[in-house]
């Protein structure tokens, strides 16, 4: 929101000039905060300008090597070279990435990076995993090549570049050419095939932008490559000029009917995945559900002192991610509905959870440790589960991201992994009693999911520090807290994640996925590995070298065994030992994460689905390292210098019977990092050449976004005829007058947190208003100051907010410091609350109060579809006003295309209904006497029913039908009013 709204403030202030400052800048939105002052540096490689900050230089050097490596490969795949240097902007963590100004939108967890094609910028965060970092760089570079190649094709054929390839194809080819299919791809595709939610090619637009689309796109590109030849992928881009409809491009290139291509692809998916259905377990059939609604993950179990078992987990049932708990019986069946322990994503304290990355831990004395983002960094929260009281919160300077805290058995220490400013992830132990933080590892490997042994002597964790880690394998390791030694617990070309010790410390449960014979990853299953090798082999009677029988110890070293307990269709995550022969885990099935309990664990351990010896690991101190750019010289490494590029250039000419011809242009420039922005607006309302300067409107403004406080300032000159119903001096029947304004403004928006901010603005301008009909020629030198406090934690549904609340309190004072012609105060309070009655039903309330008081105070107005329904816009006017609106919003057809498929073609995304009641009252002094047809001095309102139709997921049509209420609701007008408009609900 930040830029858009901040700019809105700036422009708004500028356009309305001083008298109206802060009157109409009512708006909401969360804040994108620049917590860190990045010291940007540019590293120049053969093909790239790499933007990074000094703390992450090593990571940037790895990234530089990855980028050049990707370039060399993609130059061959695309048979194409780039003629411009590519700006690559690196962040060392997701939390830093979220602060980028290169895009104005909020970046959720899980976004691996993006390519912005206007300036050709590629923006990528690291997340502690160099494999992932490398893959994302390749992914984005595929986008860069695709875009440049496509633009070249269009330009060669002189086709306007107003069409682009479908997203499934661009993302699919980017994934496909980023590397072999990973375990997540296989998990999604297997699940989609087994649960029958594969979206056919002709309907893939219905899942545009979803994770399923990415993975289906990758599978489609792999299918095209295998079936029609690898070269066909590039041909699809080369042939894009042939038709605007990509289906026809596919038919031309692959020389098959589109439906035939689709059928072949679906058959290919079935042939690939159906044979694997033999001898598999289905989690929903073989494991009981503990929490199966919505999205639930990262379970932990706690047995209260009163004997009750409770399962705690992170879940998203209604849009916000919260921390839930559910009481379970001795067989881990839920005994009641899940309850919220911690409300997430609504407060500064619990901004967001890392729902897929960070586990929780419960100490033996019942303290829950979990991580949320809270301001600049992640923090570890503790919560006493017995007393239900929040405990201390731990944060650590320079530890940006924190994952998976685990309590020591004595409850004094917490181990966790953290990404610091360098971008690498390492193991740490924090002693809560001495307030001492100890770093256990310090390298480039990806260490994850630590768990403390019951003895307190060891940590087990997952890491790619294995000798097979160069091939992206993850194994389990133990860290000895006394010696600092790290030893393998498992070894092999596999992904071993999420280990947890058994209560006796003899075994470790974890999940693992391995490649099958065809190179694809199989299901992610629950395994148990011995914590210690078995005993030495017993002596046996055997022939010695002299041929005599004697007792001998076989020369076989002690063995460690791993047992696979499941054979799941898709994937298990985060297993937790439970008492009574059970393991709790999160399962992924039917595109949903749920918490389940696996029973009969003792029997599964004695008769596992697979018993395997843990392979002996090689003794290599530092098994592998990724390539890295050689030590860059000072010539290659430069301080960042702002260079501005064009963002928007738009011109407009309009012709109006009343106003005549007018025209103008808007230009916007920004630096490469999007931190510094210039806006130039030029507009002329002049009717003839000699009138040009008199009718020229100019606004020059600059906005700085690199600091925590967003600062804007500018100068303006406005001149022309103005039509303003809110001006109290304007002629009543035709409120048109001439006005010239010269001035400057400044504005500061300071975010207190993601949800709250303070806005300050000031402007100083000379204003000349000429109203010949009323013989008014008023000059004023206006100083206007405004302050606002804004809060917004509302959760948006398809048609508008559905939960949370937002509000704004504003105060402004405008005065004429030379002529004393103007002098008034503005006060405004706008509060909106959204009560979630049920998952799909919301009761929304709005309360608005506004006062303008003083000389030449402006009028507020209401009416129209945005506030007071049933009354024409501007027909409710006054210097003081209150307004309230209440609306019950409910679904009529959810996912209408599922019920009426033709609606999908029309873009219908949802249809909802609303019952509403609006009420308002305005006061004036002598204004009504002059214009009696306006509604003022009485309490009026309306009530009725409305329809909300969401088209294409982002465009809402609103239709309201109701009765007007007059005279303090004593009268109801008999005639129904109908009102049609578009826009989101309040």
């Amino acid at each position: 929101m930040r830029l858009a709204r901040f700019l809105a403030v700036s422009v708004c202030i500028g356009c309305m000039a001083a008298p109206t400052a802060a009157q109409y800048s009512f708006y909401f939105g969360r804040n994108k905060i620049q917590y860190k002052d990045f010291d940007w540096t540019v590293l120049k490689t053969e093909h790239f300008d790499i933007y990074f900050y000094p703390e992450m230089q090593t990571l940037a050097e790895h990234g530089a090597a990855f980028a050049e490596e990707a370039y060399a490969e993609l130059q061959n795949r695309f048979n194409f070279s780039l003629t411009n240097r590519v700006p690559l902007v690196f962040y060392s963590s997701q939390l830093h990435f979220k602060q980028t100004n290169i895009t104005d939108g909020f970046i959720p967890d899980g976004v691996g990076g993006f390519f912005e094609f206007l300036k050709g910028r590629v923006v990528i965060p690291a997340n502690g995993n160099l494999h992932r970092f490398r893959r994302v760089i390749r992914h984005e570079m595929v986008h860069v090549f695709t875009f440049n190649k496509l633009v070249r094709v269009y330009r060669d054929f002189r086709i306007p570049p107003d069409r682009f390839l479908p997203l499934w194809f661009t993302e699919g080819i980017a994934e496909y050419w980023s590397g072999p299919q990973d375990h997540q791809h296989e998990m999604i595709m297997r699940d989609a095939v087994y649960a029958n939610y594969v979206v056919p090619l002709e309907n893939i637009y219905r899942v545009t932008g979803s994770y399923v689309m990415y993975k289906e796109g990758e599978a489609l590109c792999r299918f095209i490559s295998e079936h029609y030849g690898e070269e066909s992928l590039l041909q699809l881009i080369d042939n894009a000029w042939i038709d605007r409809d990509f289906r026809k491009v596919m038919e031309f290139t692959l020389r098959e009917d589109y439906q035939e291509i689709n059928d072949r692809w679906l058959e290919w998916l079935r042939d690939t995945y159906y044979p694997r259905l033999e001898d598999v377990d289905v989690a929903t059939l073989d494991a009981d559900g503990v929490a199966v609604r919505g999205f639930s993950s990262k379970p932990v179990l706690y047995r209260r002192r009163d004997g009750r078992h409770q399962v705690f987990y992170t879940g998203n049932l209604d849009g916000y991610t919260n921390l839930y708990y559910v009481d379970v019986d001795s067989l881990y069946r839920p005994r009641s509905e899940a309850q919220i322990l911690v409300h997430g994503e609504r407060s500064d304290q619990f901004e967001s959870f890392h729902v897929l990355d960070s586990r929780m831990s419960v100490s033996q004395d019942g303290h829950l440790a979990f991580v949320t983002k809270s301001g600049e960094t992640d923090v570890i929260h503790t919560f006493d589960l017995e007393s239900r009281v929040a405990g201390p919160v731990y944060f650590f300077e320079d530890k940006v991201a924190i994952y998976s805290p685990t309590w020591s058995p004595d409850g004094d220490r917490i181990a966790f992994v953290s990404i610091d400013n360098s971008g690498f992830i390492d193991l740490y132990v924090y002693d809560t009693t001495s307030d001492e933080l100890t770093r256990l590892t310090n390298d480039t490997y990806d260490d994850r999911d630590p768990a403390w042994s019951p003895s307190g002597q060891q940590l087990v964790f997952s890491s790619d520090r294995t000798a097979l880690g160069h091939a992206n394998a993850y194994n389990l390791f133990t860290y000895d807290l006394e010696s600092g030694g790290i030893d393998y617990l498992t070894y092999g070309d596999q992904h071993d994640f999420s280990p947890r010790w058994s209560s006796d410390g003899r075994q470790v449960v974890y999940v693992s996925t391995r490649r099958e014979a065809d190179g694809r990853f199989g299901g992610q299953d629950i395994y148990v590995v011995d914590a210690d090798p078995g005993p030495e082999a017993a002596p046996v009677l055997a022939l010695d070298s002299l041929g005599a029988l004697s007792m001998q110890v076989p020369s076989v070293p002690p063995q460690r065994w791993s047992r696979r307990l499941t054979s799941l269709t898709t994937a298990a995550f985060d297993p937790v030992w439970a008492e009574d022969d059970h393991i709790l885990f999160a399962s992924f099935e039917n595109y949903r994460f749920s918490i389940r309990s696996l029973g009969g664990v003792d029997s599964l351990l004695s008769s596992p689905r697979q018993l395997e010896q843990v392979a002996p690991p090689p003794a290599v101190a530092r098994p592998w390292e990724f390539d890295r750019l050689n030590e860059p010289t000072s010539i290659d490494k430069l301080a960042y210098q702002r260079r501005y590029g064009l963002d928007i250039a738009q011109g407009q000419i309009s012709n109006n019977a009343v106003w005549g011809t007018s025209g103008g242009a808007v230009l916007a420039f920004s630096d490469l990092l999007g931190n510094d922005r210039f806006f130039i607006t030029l507009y002329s309302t002049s009717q003839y050449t000699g009138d040009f300067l008199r009718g020229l409107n100019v606004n020059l403004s600059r906005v700085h976004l690199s600091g925590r406080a967003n600062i804007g300032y500018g100068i303006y000159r406005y001149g022309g005829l103005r039509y303003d119903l809110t001006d109290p001096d304007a002629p009543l029947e035709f409120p048109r007058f001439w006005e010239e304004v010269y001035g400057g403004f400044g504005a500061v928006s300071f975010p207190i947190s993601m949800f709250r901010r303070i806005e300050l603005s000031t402007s100083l301008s000379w204003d000349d208003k000429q109203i010949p009909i009323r013989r008014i020629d008023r000059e004023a030198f206006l100083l206007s100051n405004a302050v606002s406090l804004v809060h917004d934690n509302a959760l948006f549904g398809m048609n508008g907010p559905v939960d949370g609340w937002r509000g704004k309190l504003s105060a402004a004072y405008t005065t004429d410091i030379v002529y004393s012609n103007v002098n008034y105060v503005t006060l405004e309070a706008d509060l909106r609350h959204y009560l979630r009655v049920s998952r799909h039903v919301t009761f929304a309330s709005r309360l608005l109060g506004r006062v303008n008081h003083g000389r030449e105070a402006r009028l507020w107005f209401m009416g129209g579809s945005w506030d007071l329904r049933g009354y024409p816009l501007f027909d409710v006017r006054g210097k003081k006003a209150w307004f309230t609106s209440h609306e019950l919003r409910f679904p009529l057809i959810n996912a209408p295309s599922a019920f009426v498929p033709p609606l999908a073609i029309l873009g219908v995304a949802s249809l909802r209904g609303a019952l509403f009641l609006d009420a308002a009252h305005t006061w004036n002094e002598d204004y009504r006497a002059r214009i009696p047809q306006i509604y003022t001095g009485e309490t009026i309102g309306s009530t009725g029913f409305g329809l909300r139709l969401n088209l294409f997921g982002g465009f809402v049509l609103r239709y309201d039908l109701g009765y007007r209420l007059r005279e303090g609701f004593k009268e109801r007008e008999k005639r129904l009013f109908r009102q049609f408009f578009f826009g989101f609900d309040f």
Partner: protein
Amino acid sequence: MDPVLDAPLEVAWSYNARAGFGPDAPQSFGEYILISTRQGEVHVIEAATGRRVGAKRFGDAVNGAPVVVDRVLVVPVAAGRSSLVAYNLSRAQVIWRRRGPPIHTGLAAVEEDVILVNIDGVVERVRAADGELVWSHALTDAPRVYARPIVLPDRVIIVDEHGRAVALDLESGAVIWEHLVGGQVYTAPAAGDGRLAVPTTRGQLSVLDLNTGDRLWQFALPDSTVRMATPAVNEKVVVAGASDGFLRKWDAISGALEWVFDGGEALTAAPVLTDSFAYAGSMGRRLLAVRMADGTLAQEIELRGRIKSSMTLQPDGLIVLTEPRYVVRLKEADGV
């Protein structure tokens, strides 16, 4: 043509053709140059001055090179209502049009006829004067053909996308020989001195005997993602660029690799050979003059855009097509 054009070169003139170009080289036509554009136009330019003699639109896109047969210009159309258009240059009028599957490759002239391959993999010999079909041959499995036909005195060579090289009798269209080179072929092969050099998308270059279709030698890179470009062939050497940015020179007879020059950016256009130099256009906007003797760089000239099309060597100049839409003529630098 005497292959003498010694570096350093300099730009003699530049011509704006208003659209991009296909992979084929410009056609020399007496003192004129013939250029087809992807906007469907054919331009006639005076070779000495770069002055436009004329330009006419024949369809929505022309991707392959047209030919001139007895003052009849025959244009292959990749997108448009007609797929083949004949234009009498003397009378300045279209004399016939043919509808049918689009033609994405260039044409080859044979006496009074033209040879074409359409997108359905059908090879045809058509009379230029009236468009009458002389013979037609459908290639096996109706493959796509991205390479312009190569005409020899008694046969025409077609190489399809699947890497199948076919020699057809010029008079009857009958198959003389067929050979699978291995690997997909998306760029034109080149012939010279009894040899046919076929580049593939899988990092290979196969050299066949034009008489028998037998493989004489093959070069294969370990990296199968590399795309070899159309080579240049003479009696002594084969020279080809590739998407990996390297220009390679082989002994034409033994296939021994003689030198490798690192051009930096992808080299996707066919090089042009003179006695002393190999001229190669790069995707990095550079024209490279590389010494034939030792593969060292003699000169590089930065042009206005990528060079993706084959070049044409003239007695005293080199015609280069560059992005976004320029025809450039280079000549030996004055005073050197």
